[in-house]
Structure formats: structure tokens, C-alpha cells
């Protein structure tokens, strides 16, 4: 019976851990996405600046 209790608990625990692991993977993906988006924003900003200069030079 003791084994039974243990195995039941471990079944639940494993599912809970797996849900947590997925959440961690999501955080990692979000982190990369944020970096990527900042990169794009900076590139955009730079581009606008360059365009602005180009216009001014015309």
C-alpha cells in the first residue's frame, strides 16, 4: 500500500514538473524573441536616422 501511495504521488509530481518545464521553455523562447525585437527596433531606428540624413543632404 505504501508503494501505491508513492507511485501515485510520483505520477502527479511528474505531470506537475512537466508543466513547469514547458513554462521554462516558453520563457527561453520569449527571451530570444525580446532580443530579436529590440534588434529590429534598433535597426529600424538607425534606418530612419540614415534616411533622415539622406533627405537633409538632398
Amino acid at each position, binding site marked *: 500500500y505504501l508503494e501505491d501511495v508513492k507511485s501515485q504521488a510520483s*505520477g502527479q509530481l511528474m505531470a506537475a514538473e512537466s*508543466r513547469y518545464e*514547458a513554462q521554462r*521553455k*516558453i520563457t527561453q*523562447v520569449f527571451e530570444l*524573441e525580446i532580443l*530579436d525585437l529590440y534588434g529590429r527596433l534598433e535597426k529600424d531606428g538607425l534606418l530612419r536616422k540614415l534616411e533622415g540624413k539622406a533627405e537633409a543632404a538632398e
Partner: protein
Amino acid sequence: MAEDTQRNFRSVYYEKVGFRGVEEKKSLEILLKDDRLDIEKLCTFSQRFPLPSMYRALVWKVLLGILPPHHESHAQVMAYRKDQYSDVLHALKVVRFISDTTPQVEVYLRMYQLECGKLPRSPSFPLEPEDEVFLAIAKAMEEMVEDSVDCYWITRCFVNQLNNKYREFLPQLPKAFEQYLNLEDSRLLSHLKTCSAVSRLPYDLWFKRCFAGCLPESSLQRVWDKVVSGSCKILVFVAVEILITFKIKVLALNSAEKITKFLENVPQDSSDALVSKAFDLWHKHCGTPVHSA
């Protein structure tokens, strides 16, 4: 004694009119009533009998470890599984990797990739061969399992089983195929050899995709019952039976290309009988698993 005769008569009768599974269904229901499901007995049952459709998803989930053996925890564990499903699904929408128009099987693939830490940087990157395998299996699974949470989890664990538990066995299946085909019909094998077709047979379709996209789902799920419950060798006998069933056609084809092309698109109208015969072959060569229930 009289009762026995009557019961046998009834079984035979059911068998004739197509209710062959009545006795089996009852014995499965007894197994499923246990507070703590006996995984070994469920495996043996699934190895021996086709699972009744209404219990297939449940038994698969238990055998694949999506649900634990204890009935009492099923609701709680399934709630965790559902959370995980919606968390991952939502995350993919946030990063705009999927949209409302993304095909369901591709959604499953992306979810799986995210969970494995293998999500590519952009959805427009070309797919790897293993992704195509996942998609083919997910597509077939969609036809078998109605609920999308169940479908995702079963596909994910089915694919994991192929990649882990069966990793070492799957590459050996082409050799085994050749061996059993030789035992069953050596003339067919020598024809394949003459055409240099042996090394070019659709092994990926057979042994990586487990016939997903090759057999109709109604027959395929009976094969997958065996794969889920522990036998990947059944795949060999399905392949052998395909060759035997379409022997005349195959013997008439004289190039490896034509043979492979034909085998990739075999007619599907007799699939159910084909699968039954493949089971007979399997039992003949590997014995019948003892049903201890």
C-alpha cells in the same frame, strides 16, 4: 458445460455478424475498473486484441504515460496536461509563430518543437525530415483522436516512443523485413532483388512514419495499438503482408522506381483484411502474447 457451449455459440455468432469484440470489450472493462491500472495487463490486452474505439484514447494515454496508473489522479494530471497544452499554444501565438490560420498539425509540430527546445528562429525555415515524420503521424492521429489536447499529447508521446524506446530497433526492421519476406515468399524477394529494389523500398514510410499516410486510419489504429503497447516489430509484418497482398502487381513491375512508387500508394480498399493478415503473420512468427487477465 451447457453455459460454455452457449457462450461459445454466442461468440461465434457475434464473430459472424461482426460483434467479435463483445467478450474482449468486457474483459477490458474489467481491467479498466481497477483503482490502479495494471499496465502490464493492459499491454498484453492491446497486443492481443483490437482496442474498442471508445477506450482507445484512454488506454493509449495510460500506456504512453500521459495518465498515471491511478484512477484517482487522472483528473488532476489531465488538468496539468491541459494547462501545459494551452500555455505552449498561447506562447506560440504571442511570438507570432502561429496564427489562427495555421493548420492544426503544424500547430502540434511547433508546440512539440518548443517543448523540445528545437523551435526554429522563423516559421519559414525549411522543415527537417523528422518534422515531416511528426506531421505525418499527427495528421493520422487527428483522424483517430477527437480531442485536440489528447491528440497533441498522444502524438508527442508516440513520437517520443519511436525516438527513445524503439531507437535501436527501428533501423533493424528493413533487415527483418527481408528475412520474413524470404520465409513467406522467397520468389517475391528474389524479384525485388533482381530489380535492385530491396534497398529502395519505402522504409521511411513504413518504419519511421509507421504507415501514417499509407493505410487508412481505421486500419492504421489497429496497428498502432500494437506499437503503443510495446511492439514495433508488427510494422515488419504489415510491410510483408502489403507485399504478399499485392504480389501479382509487384511481380508485374520491373523497376525499383515503379515498385517503390506503387508501394507508397497502395490501394486502400482491402486494408482492414490486410492488417488482420499481418497480425496472423506476426503471431505465427513471434507467438501469441499470453493474456493473463
